[in-house]
């Protein structure tokens, strides 16, 4: 071989070859790079569906007329509710909700039909289990919607009008069916990639420190940049393979349409995993044991689950958490994913996010090499 490595990259090719072999022979590392992210995207994709349908509801119908039955049908027809039980007392209705057998209880008083026809206000009581705010909100909205619809129908009939005086015609852009997977799965890719990359990179150098091979490397004329590049490139390849698998799952398992450029998606993923792997490597150069590296990784990764906008919108966070979210690579990646996948945004609209990820990766990686000492303690 005639090509000579520049001095500052000495050892790069040796480490690169070795690291590739080690990654593919070390089944545990591969398993932990692939299994948890796959589990995460599948579990989150299916479970994080806050589009609640067919909630159990118990009904206490004291009226037992055509009108009361029509009201119950109206509730069921929203698809939000399904009647699980008809009860015979208010106490039983309350008990159903309290025991969690029903998310809501509908009580129709005996004079419902009479008041309706007499032109009086007919009261209907809905008991809602507020211990789960998502389902409670949905139940509340639906109940109010049903009541509104019924009232409007009666009013139109009485006033002889065919249309409402004012009608709002909302149009939901980008995710018209408001499918939860469309919103969540792009975000899950962000956290899933994070798990795959940070842990693996965080182990890579500290493992050599523990086994004593790092000492042998330090005795050699290997350069710091050669070591870091040789370590990161194989992990980059594996992580990008992982990213591709996640995108395939997004498209063909959860059927999330990708509106933007696939190339940009890949570029974003590359910059993101580079930043994360650099972060992992940085942890690995600081930690003295694999255990310490594990704890440090957990510490830097947990906040991004909460503050990256993956689950909770960043805009509603208190100022300090919002500020904190701006230093997390996941924040930018998740926004990029939603922009490219859902909104089909163009490069000019999101290049700043790409630049921020690139700078983060560059700085973190340089820190790895510059702060790595070629001496032991």
């Amino acid at each position, binding site marked *: *071989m005639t090509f000579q*490595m520049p001095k500052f990259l*000495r*050892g790069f*090719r*040796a*480490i690169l*070859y*070795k690291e590739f*072999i*080690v990654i593919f*022979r*070390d089944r545990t590392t591969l398993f932990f790079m692939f299994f948890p992210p796959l589990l995460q995207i599948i579990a989150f994709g299916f479970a994080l569906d806050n589009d609640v349908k067919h909630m159990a509801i118990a009904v206490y119908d004291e009226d037992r007329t055509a009108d009361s039955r029509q009201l119950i049908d109206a509730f069921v027809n929203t698809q939000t509710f399904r009647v699980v039980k008809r009860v015979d007392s208010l106490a039983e209705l309350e008990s159903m909700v309290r025991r969690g057998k029903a998310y809501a209880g509908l009580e129709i008083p005996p004079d419902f039909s009479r008041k309706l026809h007499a032109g009086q206000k007919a009261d209907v009581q809905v008991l809602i289990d507020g211990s789960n705010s998502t389902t409670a909100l949905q139940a509340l909205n639906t109940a109010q919607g049903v009541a509104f619809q019924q009232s409007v129908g009666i009013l139109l009939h009485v006033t002889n009008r065919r249309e409402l005086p004012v009608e709002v015609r909302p149009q939901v852009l980008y995710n018209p069916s408001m499918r939860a997977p469309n919103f969540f799965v792009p975000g899950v890719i962000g956290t899933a990639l994070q798990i795959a990359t940070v842990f693996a990179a965080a182990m890579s150098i500290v493992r050599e420190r523990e*086994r*004593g*091979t790092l*000492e*042998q*490397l*330090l*005795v*050699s*004329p*290997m350069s710091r940049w050669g070591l870091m590049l040789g370590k990161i490139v194989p992990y980059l390849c594996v992580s990008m393979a992982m990213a591709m698998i996640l995108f395939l799952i997004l498209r063909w398992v959860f059927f999330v349409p990708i509106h933007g450029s696939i190339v940009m998606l890949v570029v974003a993923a590359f910059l993101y995993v580079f930043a994360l792997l650099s972060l992992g490597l940085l942890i690995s150069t600081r930690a003295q044991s694999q255990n310490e590296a594990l704890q440090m990784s957990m510490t830097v990764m947990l906040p991004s689950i909460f503050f990256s906008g993956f689950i909770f919108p960043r805009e509603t966070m208190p100022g300090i958490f919002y500020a904190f979210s701006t230093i997390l690579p996941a924040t930018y990646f998740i926004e990029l994913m939603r922009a490219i996948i859902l909104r089909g945004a163009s490069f000019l609209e999101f290049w700043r996010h790409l630049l921020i990820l690139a700078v983060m990766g560059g700085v973190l990686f340089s820190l790895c090499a510059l702060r790595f000492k*070629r*001496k*032991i*303690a």
Partner: protein
Amino acid sequence: MIQCENLTKRFGDVTAVDRVTFSVAKQSIFGFLGPNGSGKSTVIRMLCGILEPTEGVGRIAGQDVSGDTDAIKGSLGYMSQRFSLYDELTANENLQFYARLYGVRGEAMKKRRDELIALTHLEPYIDRRAGQLSGGWKQRLAMACALVHSPTVLFLDEPTAGIDPVARRELWDLLFELSSGGMTLFVTTHYMDEAERCTHVGYIYMSKLVVCGAPDDLKQLPAVNPPGTKRLDVTCDHVTVGLRAVRKLDGVRASTVFGQSMHFLVEESMPEQSIRDALGNAGIHQVDIRPIGPSLEDVFVALTRQYAGGPA
């Protein structure tokens, strides 16, 4: 080839190596002895340029080992106590890795690899994963890896710890071969018989270098051979009984059992007959007495006692 001047390493309040001064000539085999925790590995790490000395100077072939040590790295081989091999790689891949790391490539690498395989007899195990090799073969592979860039100085940190006697003997044969080829070897060990094979030895005790020199010179030291004394080897049956009987005699300064015989340091004037009499009284009659010189063990025991302020 190797020089230390007041080489010192402190970790916080603990002084691991205290003003150690010695030098090792080219092509010699330098045995570095001392109990666990005395500072042997620390000295090696400083000389290999991976641990910064607190004070003093270390030089390899005239080059300072502190600060940027790139200049010496190519001429230096290091085999650590833990045989720094990658368990997931085969023996061959380990060799290739270290060769590439030192920029040995292509034909040069193939040639060097074949040489080292022949030297260490690794051939049958070349495609075996390093993690599956036994201690002795791991040690040979680690040795081959440390030699792959043809260093001029080789540091071996306890290379024979935990390996069988045959592998130990073969390793020493290999070291002599390397030395005769012009290499300078620096070996730490616990074994006295290994120390006897070295051209020069240094003994470090409680972070300080107690003595340094050729084994034969050390045996001539006055501290080892107090004036007016001689050393005797007494061979007989029931050496433990005999030791108790002779030890009581006036004029016996030190005594120890050595296999089937006893070693005594006695007054020059002490007649052999008084030892025979004492043994005879203890019921031992078949006795063979001959004068001997001190062993290296005697040297280190004497010097350690002197150093620690005990009886010589």
